């Protein structure tokens, strides 16, 4: 898709002059298939299809190192957010479904009562992954240390209805 304004949703990627500072400082660069500066370059020339299919957008840790270092003030971390959203709304196959499933389960849990119940979130995430015993070795110790709350937090009155208007999980 060629975006005539050269801005990728929220950010003007045409300011990029390919200094690669973003990629040089990225803590997860070695696990990425496209480096951050390559992502930005592909968007600036109006070719976002590779970026949308990349692993990169799903393993970005969201640390904002690239965003605060960019000499042209492009919030690259926020571009990654926008790419994720677009890949979902374009119905593209997600190369890291375990990340997408986590985010979806998380937002669903927020919508349930307004606050996250960590125990339920992790349980539901494992079921969604089809790996019921994922991370369970931590659970007994978390419980004994008082870090695992069995009971859910209080439900915020009216939150569910309010938030459903903003976000439909099927999106």
């Amino acid at each position, binding site marked *: 898709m060629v975006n005539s304004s050269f801005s990728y949703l929220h950010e003007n990627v045409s300011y990029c002059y390919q200094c690669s500072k973003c990629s040089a400082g990225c803590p997860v660069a070695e696990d990425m298939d496209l480096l951050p500066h390559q992502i930005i370059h592909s968007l600036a020339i109006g070719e976002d299809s590779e970026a949308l299919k990349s692993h990169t957008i799903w393993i970005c*840790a969201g640390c*904002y190192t690239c965003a*605060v270092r960019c000499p042209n003030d492009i919030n690259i971390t926020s571009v990654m*957010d926008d790419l994720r959203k677009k890949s979902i709304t374009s119905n593209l196959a997600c190369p890291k479904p375990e*990340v997408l499933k986590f985010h979806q389960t998380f937002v669903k849990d927020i919508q349930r009562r307004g606050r996250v119940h960590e125990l339920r979130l992790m349980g539901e995430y494992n079921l969604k992954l089809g790996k019921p015993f994922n991370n369970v070795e931590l659970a007994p110790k978390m419980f004994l240390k*008082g870090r695992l709350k069995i009971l859910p937090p209080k439900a*915020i009155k009216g939150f569910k209805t309010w938030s459903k208007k903003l976000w439909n999980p099927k999106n």
Partner: protein
Amino acid sequence: MESEKLGFYPGCTLEGSSSGYAESMLKVFELLKIPIKELDDWSCCGASSAHALDHELHLALNLRNLSLAEKQDFKELLAPCAACYHRLISTNNEFYLDNALLASLNDQTGLNYQGKVKVRNILDFLIHQVGIEKIEKQVSHSLSSLKFACYYGCLNTRIPRLLPFDKVEYPEGMDQIIKALGAETVEWSYKTECCGAGLGVTAEEISNKLVSKILLDASAKEVDCIVVACPMCHVNLDTRQDKIIQQFDIPKEIPIYYITQIMGLAFGIEEQFLGIKQNFMPALQI
């Protein structure tokens, strides 16, 4: 009316798996005589997932809490969780830069936020509001025999398009606090390197690799403890450390404490009131 000025936004983690952070912070504030009141009816800020899926959803979730704070007459809202802080302050800043966006979101969500609340993180508040001098005066149990690595992580210091409260690349505020408690802090290279945050759940191998580098550098500096100001950093550095030190040949376990737990100890507050038993790694020997 003083007591109504500072609001406390705990967020889901401080109410859940990192309740020791909230507990120690409230104890320390009580001793320093800083009135603080929990934001009534708060809801999740969405981190780490809402912004990852939908920018407007992230803005709306934070707008709700900012609007509640304004309605409840809080001039400032303190978010000790670095992720909550980042979400709240970046939302606030986005509204400041784009009034039309705020108006349109107020409209869509049925809220009426005017942009009057100031969002602060724990380090910013301790350094610039409380002040190092006041912290120093409160010390009854000097930590002079101990050496700390101050780990700032990502989200307290890296906020795009905002004047930072500390140096972004090499912050020093937490070091100043620890020094005021009588202890030594080290110069090290991993102060602001990422621990992987939510990748600890979704891509553990990547997060473990990042954590191992942080632990290795701290270990080379022979520190007694790493101090954090973020529940995600704490979970990643503390709860999986036994596995990580085996996998990456890290010589010994390093205790991971919240800044407020360390302050509490130096102020003479008993461990049982600081949530220290929640930490997985062995307790500091003082």
